[in-house]
C-alpha cells in the first residue's frame, strides 16, 4: 500500500512539474505575441481612424487604447485582462474579441477533431501496411508516406477540392453547413475534404512511429511467445499496438501544431469560419488586436495539447513519470 501511494505521489509531482512548465511557456508565448504585434511599424490609431483623422482624435484614441503607457505596463495590463477573459475589442468587427473567437474556436475544434480521427485511421492502416511482408506494399507505402509528410496542406486542399468537389462533385466545396440543414451527416460531408487535407501529414508521421514500434517488437520474441501461448491474431495485434501507443500520442500532440498551422490555409480554401480563417482575415484588415488574440489562442491551445499528451503518456507508461519527475 505504501508502494502504491509513492507511485501516486510521483505521478502528481510529474503533472505538477509539467504544469509549471506549461504556464511558463504560455507566459513567454504571450510575451512574444505581444511584442511582435507592438513592433509593427505605423500608428494603430491611424489604421483605425484613417488618414483623414485629426491629430487630436488620434491622440485621444491612443490614450483610450493605453498606447501612451510604458510598454511593460501595457504588457502586464494586457496579460491581466487576458486572464479575466477580456481579449480586447476588435475594431474591424465592432465587437469584443471574446465574442468572435468563441464560435471560431468551436469550428476549428470540429475540423481538428475530424482531422485527428482521419489521421489515426490513416496511421493504423499505413503503419501496418509498412510492416507488411510484401516488398511491393512496403515500397508503395514509403512513397505515399513521403508525399503525405511533405506536401503542403494548402496544395493538398486544392488538389482534393479540384478532384472531389469540382471534377467529381462528391463533396461540398466549402462551408461547414448547408443552408437549412446542419445535421450530423451534412456537417460530416462538409468536413471530409478539409479534414483529410489536414490529416495526411500527422497520419503519416504517426504511421512512421507505429512502424518503428512494430518493427522493434518484431525483433523481440514477445510475439512468437504470445502466439505459442495460443493467443488469437486479434489479441496479438492488440499487444503489438499497445506498446506503440505512447510514442504515437506524443507524435499526435506535436502534430496538432501542424494541424493548427495548416488550418490557416485550409479554412480559407474551404471557407470555414474558424480560428485560421480569422487570423488571415484580421491580418488583411490590419486588425492587430484580433491577430494578437487569435495567435495567442492558437499557441496556447497547442501548449495545452502538448501538456495533455504528456499526462496521458504518463498515465499509460509508468517509466515516463518515474524517469522525468
Amino acid at each position, binding site marked *: 500500500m505504501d508502494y502504491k501511494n509513492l507511485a501516486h505521489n510521483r505521478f502528481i509531482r510529474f503533472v505538477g512539474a509539467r504544469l509549471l512548465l506549461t504556464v511558463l511557456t504560455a507566459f513567454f508565448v504571450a510575451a*512574444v505575441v505581444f511584442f*511582435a504585434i507592438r*513592433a509593427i511599424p505605423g500608428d494603430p490609431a491611424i489604421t483605425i481612424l484613417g488618414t483623414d483623422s485629426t491629430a487630436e482624435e488620434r491622440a485621444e484614441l491612443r490614450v483610450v487604447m493605453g498606447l501612451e503607457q510604458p510598454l511593460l505596463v501595457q504588457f502586464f495590463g494586457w496579460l491581466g485582462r487576458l486572464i479575466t477573459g477580456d481579449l480586447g475589442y476588435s475594431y474591424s468587427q465592432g465587437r469584443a474579441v471574446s465574442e468572435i473567437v468563441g464560435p471560431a474556436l468551436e469550428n476549428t475544434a470540429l475540423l481538428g477533431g475530424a482531422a485527428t480521427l482521419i489521421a489515426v485511421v490513416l496511421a493504423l492502416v499505413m503503419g501496418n501496411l509498412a510492416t507488411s511482408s510484401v516488398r511491393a506494399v512496403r515500397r508503395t507505402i514509403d512513397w505515399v508516406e*513521403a508525399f503525405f509528410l511533405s*506536401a503542403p496542406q494548402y496544395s493538398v486542399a*486544392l488538389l482534393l477540392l479540384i478532384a472531389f468537389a*469540382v*471534377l467529381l462533385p462528391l463533396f461540398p466545396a466549402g462551408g461547414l453547413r448547408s443552408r437549412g440543414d446542419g445535421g450530423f451527416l451534412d456537417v460530416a460531408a462538409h468536413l471530409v475534404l478539409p479534414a483529410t487535407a489536414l490529416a495526411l501529414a500527422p497520419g503519416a508521421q504517426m504511421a512512421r512511429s507505429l512502424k518503428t514500434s512494430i518493427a522493434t517488437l518484431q525483433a523481440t520474441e514477445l510475439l512468437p511467445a504470445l502466439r505459442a501461448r495460443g493467443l488469437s491474431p486479434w489479441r496479438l495485434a492488440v499487444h503489438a499496438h499497445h506498446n506503440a501507443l505512447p510514442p504515437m500520442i506524443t507524435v499526435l500532440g506535436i502534430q496538432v*501544431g501542424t494541424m493548427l498551422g495548416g488550418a490557416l490555409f485550409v479554412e480559407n480554401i474551404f471557407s470555414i469560419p474558424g480560428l485560421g480563417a480569422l487570423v488571415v482575415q484580421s491580418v488583411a484588415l490590419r486588425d492587430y488586436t484580433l491577430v494578437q488574440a487569435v495567435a495567442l489562442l492558437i*499557441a496556447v491551445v497547442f501548449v495545452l495539447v502538448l501538456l495533455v499528451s504528456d499526462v496521458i503518456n504518463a498515465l499509460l507508461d509508468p517509466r515516463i513519470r518515474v524517469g522525468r519527475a
Partner: protein
Amino acid sequence: MTEILTKERRADVAPPTQTVTPRFRRRALLTRLPLRSQVALVLVAFVALIVTAAPVLPIADPFTGSLSDRLLPFFSDGYVLGTDSQGRDMLSRLVYGTRTSLIAGVVPILIATSIGLVIGTIAGLAGKKVNTILMRAVDVLFAFPGVLLSLLLAITLGVGLGTLIIALSVVWIAPIARIAETEVTRIRDLDFVTVARASGATLPSILGRQIVPVALPAVLAYATSLVGANVAIAGGLGFIGLGVPSPEPELGSILQEMQVAIYNNPGLALAPVILIVALSMLFPLVGDGFREAISGRGQDS
C-alpha cells in the same frame, strides 16, 4: 626484450590503411545515397539550373501580359501553359516563381543553420545553467506552430523577399539548434574528444577538428530536409498575401491568383500546385538519403 620492443614499434608505424580491408573502404557519399535520393538530387539540380538560366531562356517576360489573353488554357497560341488572370505567360511566371520560391526556401535554412549550429554548440559544451536557458528558449519557439510564428514575424517586419527570409530564418533556428545540441552533447563525451583534450588541445582546436566536423553532416542532412518544409511555409505565406508582394512571381501567390480558375480551368491551378508539392518533396528525399548514408544504414538496404 629487444625483440618485443621492435615488435611494438613495428605495430606503431604500420600504416593504418593496411589494417582496413577493402570491404570497409568508404565509397563516395553520393554513390552511397539511396536511388530515390539520387534521383531527387538530380531533379533539384535540374530545377536550379533552369531557374538560374531563366533570363537567357526563350520565355516571355513574366511581368507583361495582355488583358485580352486572360486565363487561356494550356497549349494556347503562344502560351504553352496558358495565361494567368492578368494575361501573363504562365510558363514564364512559373519559372520565375520557382526561382523566388527556391531562394525563399534555401536562404533562410542557410542562415538558420549557421545560427542554430552556434547556439547548439554553445548549449552542448557550456555548463548546465547555460544549456537550460538556451534550450528553454528553444522550447518557447517550439510552442508556436511554424506557420503562425512566421506569420507573426512577417506582419511585424512587413512584406518583401528580404523580410520574408528573415522571418523564415527565425522559425528554423529552434529545430536546428536542438539537433546540433543533441549531436554536440553526444560527441562531447566520446573517446577521441577526451584523447584530444588529454593531449592538451585547446578548445578552439577541439571545436574545429573534433566536434564541429563530426556534428556537421547530421545537422546538414537535417537542414536539407527542412528546406522542403520551408518552401511549403514560404508558399503558404505567399498564398495568404504575406509573401513577396506582386507583381513579383512566387509559387504561393501564383497559386492564390489561380484559385479563381479552379472551376472553369482546373489545369491552370494544377501547375503551381504540382511545382510546390515537388519542391517540398524533393528536399526531404535528398536530406533523408544523406542521413541514411551518414549513419551507414543506406548500405544495408
